[in-house]
């Protein structure tokens, strides 16, 4: 149990997807202008990470490993995750319009997101079991949402600040991302 907790916090804070592993930078800069959309995006990524881990782990260990096809994992994972997200989006759109308006519009953006693909590879490289993989995916998703929320909060306030003209927009966002990365560096060495 304590190992699972360690994995959770390791993935959420120490090895944070965005600031520790530099994965998923695209939504990190693209969808962090408003807190509400950042939160929806974070939850959508969390959901897809969980589903992707739940599917790719058995696929890898029950199909690819026994027949010696480990080298195919990248292309097969992309294929499987993309079609999975497609089905999830379709079912949300047809069953719950409210949920679709809140989450569904972000799902196509995540289809081939590197953070989602990254967590499935991390699960395998770290030789996690199934339960550990799921906890790792949960931690990574929570960490991603957390960083997105922090970033969007800062950027919303930044709109009211008097930023020098040359730094307006993306440059200052990059600067802040760097400072946030430095701040998250302080978590290093806490757990795993």
């Amino acid at each position, binding site marked *: 149990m304590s190992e699972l907790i360690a994995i959770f916090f390791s993935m959420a804070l120490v090895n944070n997807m965005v600031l520790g592993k530099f994965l998923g930078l695209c939504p990190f800069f693209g969808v962090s202008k408003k807190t509400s959309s950042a939160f929806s995006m974070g939850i959508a990524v969390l959901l897809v990470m969980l589903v992707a881990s739940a599917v790719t782990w058995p696929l890898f260990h029950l199909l690819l490993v026994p*027949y*010696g*096809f480990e080298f*195919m994992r990248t*292309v*097969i994972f992309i*294929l*499987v995750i*993309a*079609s999975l997200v*497609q*089905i999830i989006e*379709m*079912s949300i*759109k*047809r*069953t719950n*319009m409210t949920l679709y308006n809140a989450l569904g519009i972000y799902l196509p953006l995540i289809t081939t997101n590197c953070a989602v693909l990254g967590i499935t590879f991390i699960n395998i490289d770290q030789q996690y079991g199934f339960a550990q993989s799921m906890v790792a995916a949960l931690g990574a998703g929570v960490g991603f949402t957390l960083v997105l929320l922090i970033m969007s909060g800062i950027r919303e306030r930044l709109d*009211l600040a*008097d930023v020098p003209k040359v730094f307006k927009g993306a440059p200052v966002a990059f600067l802040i991302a760097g400072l946030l990365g430095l701040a998250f560096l302080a978590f290093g060495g806490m757990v795993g």
Partner: protein
Amino acid sequence: MSTTILAVILLSSIGLIAGIAIFVANRVLPKEDPSLEKANEIKERLPGADCGACGHPGCFAYAQAVAKSADVLEKSPCRILAKDEEASQALGEFLGIDLSNSGPGVKAVVHCTGDSPRIGTYNGVQSCAAAIQVGGGEKECPYACVGYGDCVDVCPVNAIGIDSEKGIAAVDWDLCIGCGMCVAVCPRGLIELIPADTPQYLGCNYLSSKDIAGRKKCSVGCIHCRICVRSSEQGEVEWNETKDLPQFSTVLAVDAIEKCPRKIILKTTAHLAETDAPPQERS
């Protein structure tokens, strides 16, 4: 060699399985909400400006609301549609209700002629809402247009511009669709929607008649002399007691415009149709 072939077979079969899964999901899952289909059709008959003036986040959201209940058309009417006779008839035909009687619609006017002296220089965020937070804005008159263009930013059809000489907003009466977005953002409440067939409006929103200092704050502020009411024999102009400002009807008040000592009764282009006068420069 055999590994290569097997890899190809493996990848194609996984692709095939994924494809079949999506196909099955498409068949098994319930069809899209039937109201969405209707909403899509309604959306095609809407202006598609996504101005948000109806209170919905866009034309599609409005179409969804209309598809659920046609009452929405009355409760929060689409003001662009109200001007377009053909389009509203087409929508009315589709929904099976009469929408043709929509009236002249409304357009926006800015109740300020400018010319209030500046009492300071503001260097902060270029927005009216922020500018009035600092000592009540740059201009002496507390009702003057701030001139940083919050209304310009929200106008979906670019009908408002800032007169750089006077530093006030001006509405292009022909382009204005009367959506009311500018009315909502103006921190001074200077912009008002008036019926589109009103030939004139007051270029001032100076409120308190007892505050005689208002005359000194601006060379063109309304001094509440009521000469416009007295000079209009047919009652074209009435006095609005609550606002303490003149109220105009749809008749062109020629005498009032001439006799106004401050020359702040401004003409809209709606007067052209009534008098057949040659086009005049709009102030």
